[in-house]
Every structure is written in C-alpha cells, then in structure tokens.
C-alpha cells in the first residue's frame, strides 16, 4: 500500500493531503431521511470501505459526493474546495471524481472502446486518436484489449464491470467511488473485479468503496466505516472494526454477516 494511512483517531490532517471532507451531510428523499448527518474525512491515497445493511445510505452518500443527488444540508469539500455550495460547476467536479455503479451502466449502443473514449473526447476535448490510444492502453492494462471493439452485451458481467472501471479511469480522476461494484456479479466473476480494485489501491488511488464483501474490505481498506440508518456508527481500521467492534449495532451487523457466511 502506497497511500499514507490516516492518523489514528482521525486527528487533524494537513489540508493538502485531505482528498475529501464531509461535514454533517443530510439527504432526504421526500419524507424519507436517508443520510442523517455524515461527517468524515478521506486522506489522499486512502482507501475507505463503507459497510452496512442495504438502505443504510452507502449508495446515497456516494451519489451525493458525485453531485448526482442534491443535498439538503451539510458541506462536501474536494481537496479543500467546497463542491456542495451554490454556483459550483458539477461537470467540473465530476471530471475529478470517478464513480462505478452496481449495475455497470455501460452505454449499450457503443463499443467498449467508444464507452471509454466518449468522456475524454467530449468533455476534455482530447483528440480522438490520442483518446483511443490512451483507452487501449488502459484496456490492455486490465486485460480487456481484445474486447475493445465488442458491444457491452457480448461481455460477461465481470468484463462489463471492469470496462466500467476503465471508463471512469479514462478521465484520470483524483477520487474513485465504487458503489457495490460486485453485488450484481455471479460469484465466480467477483474475483476479477476485486483484483482490478486491489491494483488501483496499490497504485495509490484514493477510493471510497461501498461493499458487501467483508473479506475484501478487511484486506484492502485503510479504514472501514459502518453505516446504519444514515449515520456512521463506527469507523476504525479493519483489524479493529472486524475483530473488536465497539458499538452494539456494529456487533449485531457483523454477527449477521458471519451467520450468513459472508465473512
């Protein structure tokens, strides 16, 4: 792991090394309050896993960070810049944040290569030839180069999800958000996607990963956050959180996971 681990106890972090800071974030869908005051900090090169039951707010948190959902209250800063205030160009923010979804969401009418080059050519105005070269290099790095000219529905779920990761990486993001990226995959396809994420972590990518793969979270995370009912109940390095959880709710959740043989 290249990334500098966060200071123990979440003490003050120098501004330059803080990739993401979230203060008292609230988000409701109509009367349903999904996020009830999330406060967290992510250092550059840090890998944080968000765990918690379905509906605990993990996905919504990631969608709020990427400004896909307007927030009701609170503040989100990216590298010291407030991105949640009025007058922020969401398109500029999203260039720096890559997000990968549970259901891949590849563009079915475009080839794999076009899926990867569409954003660089249309958003960054990268010349088409250069964008294609860079895309091929990325596809090659993740073992997908022979799929460059295929359409997404000809690919396996694992391959599609790897393409989705490559598509996000093509924008050279400073921060990657992964939203349960293996939950829609057949069990035998999970490993190939986790391998890719592990490689990204080894390369120093700052990542926020919502996941149900507890074993994976234990291996890859610098810190694990347990969410329940829109709040962070407990956050700690995986060794502590998984072996010696402090909060009752965390213990209950982990016990259920163990009973379901997911850990």
């Amino acid at each position, binding site marked *: 792991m290249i990334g500098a681990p966060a200071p123990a106890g979440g003490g003050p972090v120098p501004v330059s090394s803080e990739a993401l800071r979230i203060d008292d974030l609230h988000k409701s869908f109509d009367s349903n309050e999904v996020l009830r005051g999330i406060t967290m900090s992510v250092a550059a090169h840090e890998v944080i896993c968000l765990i918690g039951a379905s509906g605990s707010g993990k996905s919504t948190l990631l*969608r709020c960070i*990427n400004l*896909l959902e307007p927030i009701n209250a609170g503040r989100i800063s990216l590298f010291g810049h407030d991105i949640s205030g009025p007058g922020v160009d*969401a*398109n*500029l923010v*999203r*260039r720096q*944040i*890559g*997000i990968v*979804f549970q*259901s891949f*969401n*590849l*563009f*079915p*009418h475009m080839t794999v290569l076009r899926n990867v080059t*569409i*954003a660089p050519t*249309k*958003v960054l105005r990268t010349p088409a030839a250069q964008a294609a070269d860079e895309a091929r290099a990325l596809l090659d790095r993740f073992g997908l180069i022979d799929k460059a000219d295929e359409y*997404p*529905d*000809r690919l*396996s*779920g694992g391959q*599609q999800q790897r393409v989705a990761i490559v*598509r*996000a990486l093509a*924008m050279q993001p400073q921060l990657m958000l992964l939203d349960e990226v293996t939950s829609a995959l057949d069990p035998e396809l999970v490993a190939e996607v986790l391998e890719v994420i592990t490689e990204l972590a080894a390369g120093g990518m700052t990542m926020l990963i919502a996941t149900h793969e507890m074993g994976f979270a234990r291996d890859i995370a610098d810190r694990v956050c347990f969410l329940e009912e829109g709040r962070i109940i407990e956050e700690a390095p995986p060794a502590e959180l998984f072996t010696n959880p402090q909060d009752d709710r965390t213990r209950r959740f982990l016990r259920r996971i163990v009973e379901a043989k997911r850990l």
Partner: protein
Amino acid sequence: MDANSPVSPGSFAATGRGPRLFSGGGTRATVISSVSTIVVLGILVVIFLLAPGARAFEHTFFSPTDMWRSFIGNPRKGYYSVGAAIWLNIRMFLVAEVLILALALFVALIRQSASPALFPIRILTTGYVDFFRGVPLILVIFALGFGLPALNLPVVSSQSDAVYGVAALVLSYSAYVSEVYRAGLNSVHRSQVSAARSLGLSHGTALRFVVLPQAVRNVIPPLLNDFISLQKDTALVGTLGVIEANKAAGIYSATVFNFSSFTVAAILFLILTIPLARFTDRLIERDRRRRLAGGTR
C-alpha cells in the same frame, strides 16, 4: 413461407403431437401454406364472380382500358395522369417527413425537460400536442388551406395549396410523433443518464450521445408505422384542389364516369407503403432477435 412454419422439426420432438403435425419439416410447411393461400384466394374470387353485380363491378372498378387511360392521363380530354400525380404525393411525403422528425423531436425534448425556465414553452407544447391530436387532420388541412390565404399576409398567404397541405400534415403528425419520441426517451433507463453525467458530460452532451441514440432506436418501428400512415394521408391534401393521385383519380372518374382510376391510385399507394411496411417488420424482427440474444445489460 409464413412466420408460423417451424424453424427446425427437432424442436417439436418433445411434444407428442408436434412431430406428426409437422413431419416433413420446412418443405412440407411451405407446400401447406401455399395451398391454403391459393384456396382462400380462390374462394374469395369465386364469391366475387358469383355476385349478381360482378360484371358491372368489374367494369366500373377494374376496366383495363380505363385504368390505363387514367394512369397515362389526357389533359385535352380534361383529366390528369394519376401516375404523374403520385409524384406530388411522394414529394409532399418526403418534405413532410423530414420536417416532422425535426419538429416532433423538438416538442418531445421540451416536454421532457425539467428546467423551470422552460415552463411556459412546456405548457405551450403540451397544448399543441393536445390540440393537434384531437382535431381531425382534414380540418387542419381546411383551416390552413382556406384560412391562411384569406388572412392576406405577406408570404404566409401567397403559398401554393400543396405547401398548406404539407404544413397541415407536419402540424398534425408532429403531435403524434412527438409522443412516440417521448416514449422512446422514457424507455432509456435513468441510470444511463447518471453514468453519462458522472463522467462529466453536460446535460446536452449526455442527451445527444447517450440518451437520444438509444431512444430513437427503441422507437424506429412505431416511427415507421406513422410514416406509412403519412404516405396515405398525403391524399387528403387533394381536398384543397391540389392534383395529387387521389384528386387526379377523382377528376378522371368525374369526367369518364368510371372508378377504375381510383383502383390505379390505390395500387400506386400500395406500391409505396408495402415496402416500408415490410421494412418495418424486418426491423421489429431484428430487434426481437437482438433482445433475445443479448445477455445482461
């Protein structure tokens, strides 16, 4: 070869009755369908010939000399060529189709937009669609064809009747086609928009490169269906006095007292619409196969 013929005899092997019914495979099915087609057509022809007025009917509607004369036309005797007049239908159809595709897309995009700034124009487009879907096309043609010239405005009031007819077709059909587009836009899952926007694509770019291509692809069959209908409805413009195929056929029948000219017009319209109908069928079939073959999305 009809669509019901079995693809492979083996696929029926498991269902007791199947193999006996279709034994012999594709060739046998072809023979059966051909024979049954001939029998059905034969019965219809016999019924027609046995009718008391069959001779008179045949002379009035299927007289070869009248069909030929109306097809060729003879201005000195006071009637026009139906064969030449159909070109006006084709030209009106082609111009109207291009304009409809553009106007309907504009209306659909406005109606689908969520921007508060567009609220007034969104109300307008909703009213437009409600109005022109509710008013019979023939009334719209009358309103433009007789109303606009009466206004005595520059440019607007001095167009040919064919132009007014095309304008009426465009106004009426765009209301329908905009709803087809809207169904297409709604058929693209919102997660596609999320994915596009999350990559930094602006609203417009996401619409142009991600949403619209998928939306249009999903509605090509209904779009073509509307255009088959449009091809026929160009005949209504004849009510303004424009000499299109149906009007030319009417003038012939009024001059010569024989309706065979309408048969000619009908055949010409069929020649225009049937290829488009078959093309639509093929697209639907291709789309169905693509969906069956496609794995997870």
